[in-house]
């Protein structure tokens, strides 16, 4: 069970997307896992062949529990034409194939007797010392030709309540442990707005770019200039991140929010960034986030402009060390070259961890952000 966030302690395996004997490639989605933050697709971390599925669907297991075993690529069957079903019996949910690998204590006597009776002892509830399955447990079990699969326990019914708890835990920890400091600035984005209007006029509606894409790109590039804001604070020390994995706070219709990452946001072109954002929002609200997206944001940006909010001072999501807040772009009176003009202006804020950086460095970030937005075509 992968850790899909610093505060995750366990997850429920909802569905396997592979079965024993399947060849898998690094990055392939092999399972769906339910966490306090929602349903997440788990990616495999290396190439190989699924040897055995160890956890039955519906089972809640702690982070770190092996979900399946993988044979190395060297052990892959030489001929892909060989029918996998010939070697591997079809495994229904929690069938024998799944149960066999479970770590269950069974006394030697109980195991021997269970084998005689054709019972799979891993399907029994042990009443012996340490939860071991004993002879009495085996003899009390029904004796079918095949042991019945236990019904999968229901996935936590009230997902939003669980998410509320997760948010509460993370935010309380943040306010308890992280000495926040807060900075704000107003940025004239008239050049950006004009550039976007020209660009969007030339493309179909579906390809139009929202201001969020260039704003996020400017955040990512600004962070490259001030590395103290991008990384994690763990075990009493700051660990800067070379990559900018920009966590995007996305609210959910049923309440709550998640902040999955757009990976390497500083290296993406604006169109790529826009597509990534669209894809992410669609999948988050559709309930399918990938494990790697939730696990590794290095910084978070929260944009409440849609709600008409003028400025937002965010609470840092541990173990990150900064959160950038963006408000709504509004027409405001702006003094330029001694004259008052109506200009599109956005308020940008920074909440940062004072253990890692000081206001001076935070100010450098906001001024870089402003500077970058003055040349939107270069973003």
């Amino acid at each position, binding site marked *: 069970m992968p850790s899909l966030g610093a505060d995750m302690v366990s997850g429920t395996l909802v569905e396997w997307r592979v079965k024993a004997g399947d060849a898998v490639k690094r990055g392939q989605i092999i399972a769906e896992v339910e966490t306090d933050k929602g349903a997440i697709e788990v990616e495999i971390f290396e190439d190989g062949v699924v040897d055995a599925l160890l956890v039955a669907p519906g089972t809640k297991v702690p982070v770190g529990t092996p979900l399946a075993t993988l044979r190395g690529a060297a052990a892959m069957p030489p001929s892909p034409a060989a029918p996998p079903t010939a070697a591997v019996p079809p495994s229904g949910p929690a069938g024998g194939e799944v149960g066999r690998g479970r770590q269950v204590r069974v*006394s*030697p*006597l*109980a195991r021997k007797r269970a084998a005689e009776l054709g019972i799979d002892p891993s399907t029994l509830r042990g*009443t*012996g*010392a340490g939860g071991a399955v*004993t*002879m*009495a447990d085996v003899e009390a079990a029904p004796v079918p030709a095949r042991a019945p699969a236990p019904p999968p326990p229901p996935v936590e019914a009230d997902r939003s309540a669980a998410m509320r708890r997760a948010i509460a835990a993370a935010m309380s920890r943040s306010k308890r442990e992280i000495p926040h400091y807060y900075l704000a600035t107003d940025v004239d984005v008239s050049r950006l707005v004009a550039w976007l209007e020209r660009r969007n006029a030339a493309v179909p509606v579906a390809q139009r770019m929202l201001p969020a894409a260039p704003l996020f790109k400017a955040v990512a590039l600004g962070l490259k200039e001030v590395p103290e804001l991008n990384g994690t604070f763990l075990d009493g020390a700051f660990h800067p991140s070379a990559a900018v994995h920009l966590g995007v706070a996305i609210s959910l219709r049923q309440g709550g929010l998640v902040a999955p990452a757009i990976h390497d946001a500083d290296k993406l072109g604006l169109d790529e960034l826009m597509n990534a954002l669209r894809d992410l929002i669609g999948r988050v609200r559709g309930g399918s986030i990938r494990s790697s997206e939730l696990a590794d944001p290095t910084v978070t940006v929260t944009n409440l402009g849609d709600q008409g909010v003028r400025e937002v001072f965010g609470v840092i999501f541990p173990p990150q060390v900064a959160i950038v807040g963006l408000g709504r772009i509004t027409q405001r009176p702006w003094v330029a070259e001694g004259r008052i003009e109506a200009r599109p202006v956005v308020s940008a804020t920074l909440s940062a961890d004072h253990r890692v950086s000081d206001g001076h460095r935070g100010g450098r970030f906001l001024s870089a952000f402003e500077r970058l937005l003055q040349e939107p075509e270069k973003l």
Partner: protein
Amino acid sequence: MTVAPAGPIRMTYREAVRAALREALAADPRVFLMGEDVGRYGGTYAATKGLLEEFGPERVRDTPLSELTFTGAGIGAALGGMRPILEIMTVNFSLLALDQIVNNAATLRHMSGGQVSVPLVIRMATGAGRQVAAQHSHSLEAWYAHIPGIRVVAPAVLEDARGMLAAALRDPDPVLIFEHAALYGVEGELPAVPRQVDLDRAAVRRSGDDVSLIAYGGTVGKALAAAEQLAAGGISAEVVDLRTLRPLDDATIVGSVRKTHRAVVVDEGWRSGSLAAEVMARIMEQAFYELDAPVARVCTAEVPIPYPKHLEDAALPQPETIVAAARSLVKPRG
């Protein structure tokens, strides 16, 4: 025991030992007793009281305070055709005679290619529970049970206290008899005509179905008391008395575990490298697939035996700790 009445005779463990010694002296002129204070004083535990007067100083011999010397003399006498019975006051002091016992008594048959044997019997007291502090309270049976070439027995009941000596004298090789010092005052009944006992088999002292309590010497009585308490709680415990610590009777041990599928080994020795460890290993080797729970053991805490009563009690296996170990392995029926 001058008159044999028709019914059973009530006596103490000490009197049973003495009766066996008297019978041995009377039956075989080659038998003689030797040890510290066995003559005029009548034995530290009064096991030989009255025997000097009855059999004379040639047959009941007080020795200097040197276990090494009189054990060596006993080995020489045995080699010379006698049947000496040595009393070493306690196992603690037998360490001074370890060289004679381990390097001579235990080896001579093998090293002589079977030309000689050492028909020697050594009795010694063992065990704690009497507030005589560490240097008088060790249980070192396991050390001797480690040695090939000697037989080690532990009479836990009056019948064995009465009968094991004769069996030991019939053995052509050295036999060590460990008498738990806390047992000397235990009373019981013995048949007027003593039964012959063997030195080969463990004994089931109480039959049960749910768990085997495997004990020896001073812990057999505690295991029986524990079995009584367990019965009141719905657990049927079988009590196995090892009797012979070397060679161990695997058949009886394994047979009991095959029946109950659970075992608690009770041993007044210290846990590490104990006889309990050896018994557990044999169960694992020979009855692993019969086990319905891990084998447990109750041993003495790994400290020199304390002097204060409450600490000594806490250090030793007790019926309550045996009950707790058994309960951790088996759920009461019904």
